[in-house]
């Protein structure tokens, strides 16, 4: 036994990035809402980036360690404390058997990620989300350690983090049905703030804001959508599809959030605000590649015991 859930927190679940490649069977990749933070948590814990991590919302779980274990925290800052001593975010730490990890306040963001050295064991073929309830036990998935120099408390430099904010501006690419938007709707989409409605969850964020008017499509048959697709239902209130989106949809896809800015969205919750800005594919790819370079820097640093 590696982790014991003394308190479950709300919507605590295990998420990984191994679910890709099966959308033609109607199975979406699911996975963490903030993929960047999940990958960093795994790297800091000495794991492969795609392995299972614990995704937590606030109030978060209370966890007892069942054995000596290195762990890492990334994403939202929920004021973590190990046996009452603050444990910094975006950092790796060492726990001893029977140590208790608590999260004492919501400092920033909506989703915090916990990774443990050796990874968390999950059913890889599972099609549904694994929720953690009080009394749940998470075991270590043995055998995928990378060679890792363990300093007592290694952390990540702010310079490689996405521009997290409680009211972010998120860049979007025009979607397949962008042309259906009226000029006024394009102006509203790219200049007005939108608020995440209370019906926002891991499947998608319903946005309250200006009603976007669009020409009704002659006919739209079901076609692929993805994490970050902004759909426009007939009521004119856009929906941003998030990690648990369905694989296909029939509403106009007016825009898609660029992948480098998805982590900014992943840290929002109901009643948070967001605004959108149009980008082009060159800018989107440059931002995605910069993020990959930052992760590579971190990976190399961890392997050679250098942090910054």
């Amino acid at each position, binding site marked *: 036994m590696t982790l014991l859930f003394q308190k479950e927190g709300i919507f605590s679940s295990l998420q990984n990035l191994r679910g*890709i*490649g*099966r*959308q*033609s*069977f*109607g*199975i979406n990749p699911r996975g963490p809402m903030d993929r960047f933070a999940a990958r960093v948590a795994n790297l800091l814990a000495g794991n492969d980036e795609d392995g299972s991590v614990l995704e937590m919302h606030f109030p978060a779980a209370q966890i007892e360690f069942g054995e000596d274990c290195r762990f890492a925290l990334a994403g939202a800052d929920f004021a973590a404390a190990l046996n009452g001593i603050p444990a910094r975010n975006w950092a790796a730490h060492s726990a001893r058997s029977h140590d208790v990890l608590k999260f004492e306040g919501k400092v920033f963001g909506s989703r915090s990620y916990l990774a443990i050295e050796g990874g968390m064991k999950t059913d*890889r*073929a599972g*099609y549904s989300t694994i929720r953690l309830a009080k009394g749940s036990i998470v075991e270590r998935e043995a055998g995928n350690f990378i060679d890792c120099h363990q300093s007592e408390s290694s952390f990540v430099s702010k310079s490689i983090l996405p521009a997290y904010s409680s009211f972010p501006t998120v860049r979007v*690419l025009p*979607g*397949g049905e962008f042309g259906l938007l009226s000029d006024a709707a394009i102006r509203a989409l790219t200049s007005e703030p939108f608020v995440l409605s209370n019906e926002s969850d891991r499947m998608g964020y319903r946005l309250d804001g200006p009603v976007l008017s669009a020409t009704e*499509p*002659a*006919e*739209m*048959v*079901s*076609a*692929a*959508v*993805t*994490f*970050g*697709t902004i759909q426009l239902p007939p009521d004119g209130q856009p929906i941003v599809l998030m990690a648990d989106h*369905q*694989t*296909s949809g029939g509403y106009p*896809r007016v825009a*898609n*959030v*660029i*992948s480098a800015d998805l982590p900014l969205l992943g840290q929002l919750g109901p009643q948070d605000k967001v605004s959108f800005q149009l980008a082009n*594919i*060159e800018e*989107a*790819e440059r931002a*995605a*590649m910069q993020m*990959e370079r930052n992760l590579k820097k971190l990976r190399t640093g961890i392997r050679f015991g250098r942090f910054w």
Partner: protein
Amino acid sequence: MMIEPARIFSLGDNAVTVEFGNEISEALNDAAINLSRHFNAHPFPGFVEAVPAMASTTIFYRPHEVHFHDDLFPTAFASVEAKIKDAILNVSASEEAASQLIEIPISFASNHALDLEKIAGHSGITPDETIEIFLAKVYRVYMLGFLPGFAYMGEVDGRIAVPRLTTPRTAVPKGSVGIAGRQTGIYPSESPGGWQIIGCTELELLTDNTNEPCIFRPGDHVRFFRPG
């Protein structure tokens, strides 16, 4: 060579959609399925998956890997777009994998066929006639979506092509076979849903095999039968 796509456009910076048209037709669906089979058989560096839908295929890729292996183009998108155009010129019929015919047992017992009476009433025929009309057709799997392993199949005979329920059920039982207009589909797991339920199958549609997670592939054909 296959049908010329009507449009090729980005779906974010990780995917490109190739749209052959915007209607349900076997020819457009064939084009979508053949293009996705081509890329599954001949993946390029950075390719993640090809996802066929009704009349389009979406190619998912990792931009940094595409760019690393092919820097002739200013963007990974342009590189993938060029590969798609090239594939459309070169996809030949011989590359098409054979589709399977899947036989599915179905029960029309009243506790399974939740909307059978209503479907029959819709066009003023008896439940037995409704069942006969439904069983007479072989259905094509156009695409999978909505739920893991949910196959959108067609075409349902016009006489039993009933609309969706005005108020969807909060829980359609696992295995239920539904009708929505000219489409039919099977719920692989319990789920909310608005299709009118004509019967139910006990066949397990999902598998434990990660590479073949369900018994259908787009392009397969399905025949329903009443077990003896």
